């Protein structure tokens, strides 16, 4: 059953977009909304200062008027403001209003390119968490070298408690099933060794929870096994996940530059290398994976919440809206609820 009845009735997924959030907001956000709204199955709800947004939209020859609407939000959380203000002092800022729309069912999903922390806090406070989950996590596909592997958490939780690793594993498994079509995803815990007693105290407790979870847990894996396909879902804390992701995304560019420099004295070869890297070799495409999806979904929240990169331009905003729509259609929240319910019956994971 799809979560929002309105969507079923008119066939359109309603995506609330924090139009004031992002390095290039509202200009690029409105432009991205126009791109996304060309499709018939989405309605974009631009949340922000209506006066400003109307002027921005007027720049475009946009004919499908019924698929973009404005929702007034008088305040904005700026990048230099404490994100916690979204809860304490600015509950009517654009990202908070958009989050409340998801909670009330006026929107099916939220997209924000503004402060990630403010968006996450809005999601926690105003959309709410699923039963058994205390903090959201970011799940991402490793693409290129490991097309059947996802990692979680990629940065939402710097400090993690053992039970969070279990919810990460559940979220990652749902992602692998829904988006990678893997029937029974293999789950592994990222650690400093394969043995059960390796790593920190939190890691060992997490291992025990995962081992007894009923998930397809294959044990610990080390950093040199991330890309070998041994696991479909790699669970780690947000600090480790975020550092690894950024390192992984940077490899392609550096490998290209290093190789081109080495072959500079052999002119035909350096051109060939550039062509190989830019056209064929997967390393330089790694960073394009998240761009293609327009950012990451916050898993564990009771609604689809997509956090786009702060530097998103119109195409990335459009991609974020599109993938938020696809997540709603794929009923990812319902799937996660079902998986979590199995664990909640025996106590909070």
């Amino acid at each position, binding site marked *: 059953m799809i979560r929002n009845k309105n969507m079923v009735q008119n066939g359109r997924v309603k995506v609330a977009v924090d139009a004031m959030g992002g390095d290039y907001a509202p200009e690029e956000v409105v432009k991205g909304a126009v791109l996304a709204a060309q499709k018939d199955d989405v309605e974009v709800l631009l949340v922000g200062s209506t006066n400003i947004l109307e002027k921005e939209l007027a720049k475009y020859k946009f004919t499908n008027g019924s698929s973009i609407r404005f929702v007034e939000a008088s305040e904005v959380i700026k990048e230099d403001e404490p994100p*916690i203000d979204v*809860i*304490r002092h600015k509950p009517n800022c654009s990202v908070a209003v958009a989050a409340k729309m998801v909670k009330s069912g006026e929107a099916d999903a939220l997209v924000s390119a503004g402060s990630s922390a403010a968006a996450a*806090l809005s999601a*926690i*406070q105003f959309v709410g968490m699923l039963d058994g989950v*205390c*903090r959201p996590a970011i799940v991402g596909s490793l693409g290129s070298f490991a097309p059947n592997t996802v990692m979680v958490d990629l940065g939402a939780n710097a*400090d993690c*408690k053992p039970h969070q690793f279990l919810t990460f594993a559940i979220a990652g498994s749902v992602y692998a099933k829904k988006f990678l079509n893997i029937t029974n995803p293999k789950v592994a815990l990222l650690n400093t060794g394969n043995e059960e007693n390796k790593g920190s105290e939190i890691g060992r407790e997490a291992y025990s929870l995962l081992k007894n979870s009923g998930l397809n847990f294959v044990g610990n894996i080390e950093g040199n096994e991330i890309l070998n396909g041994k696991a479909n879902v790699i669970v780690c804390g947000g600090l480790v996940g975020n550092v690894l992701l950024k390192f992984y995304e940077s490899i392609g560019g550096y490998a290209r530059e290093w190789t081109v420099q080495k072959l500079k004295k052999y002119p035909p070869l350096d051109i060939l290398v550039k062509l190989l890297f830019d056209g064929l070799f997967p390393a330089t495409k790694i960073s394009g994976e998240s761009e293609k999806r327009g950012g990451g979904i916050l898993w564990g929240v009771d609604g689809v919440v997509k956090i786009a990169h702060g530097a998103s331009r119109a195409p990335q905003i459009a991609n974020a809206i599109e993938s938020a729509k696809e997540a709603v259609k794929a009923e990812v929240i319902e799937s996660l609820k079902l998986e979590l319910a199995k664990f909640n019956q025996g106590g*909070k994971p």
Partner: protein
Amino acid sequence: MTVEEQIREIVARITHVDKNIITRESTFKEIKADSLDIVQALVAVEEAFEIEIPDEEAQKFQNFGDFVSYVESRVAQGEKV
């Protein structure tokens, strides 16, 4: 239910700890409440008792008892609608 009991319920729900381990002497660190837990608890208590707790007052809370005492004093002042 007393003010203290209500606040204990709220804090226990947000921090996912057993309410019976929260005493007036418990620090937020002892009950493993992070900064977000504390802010969520503040907001939930503000809504429950229809009061506003200024940041500068909240920053003075050293333990659960300080939090409870502050809210009790505000409620006693008849701020609850």
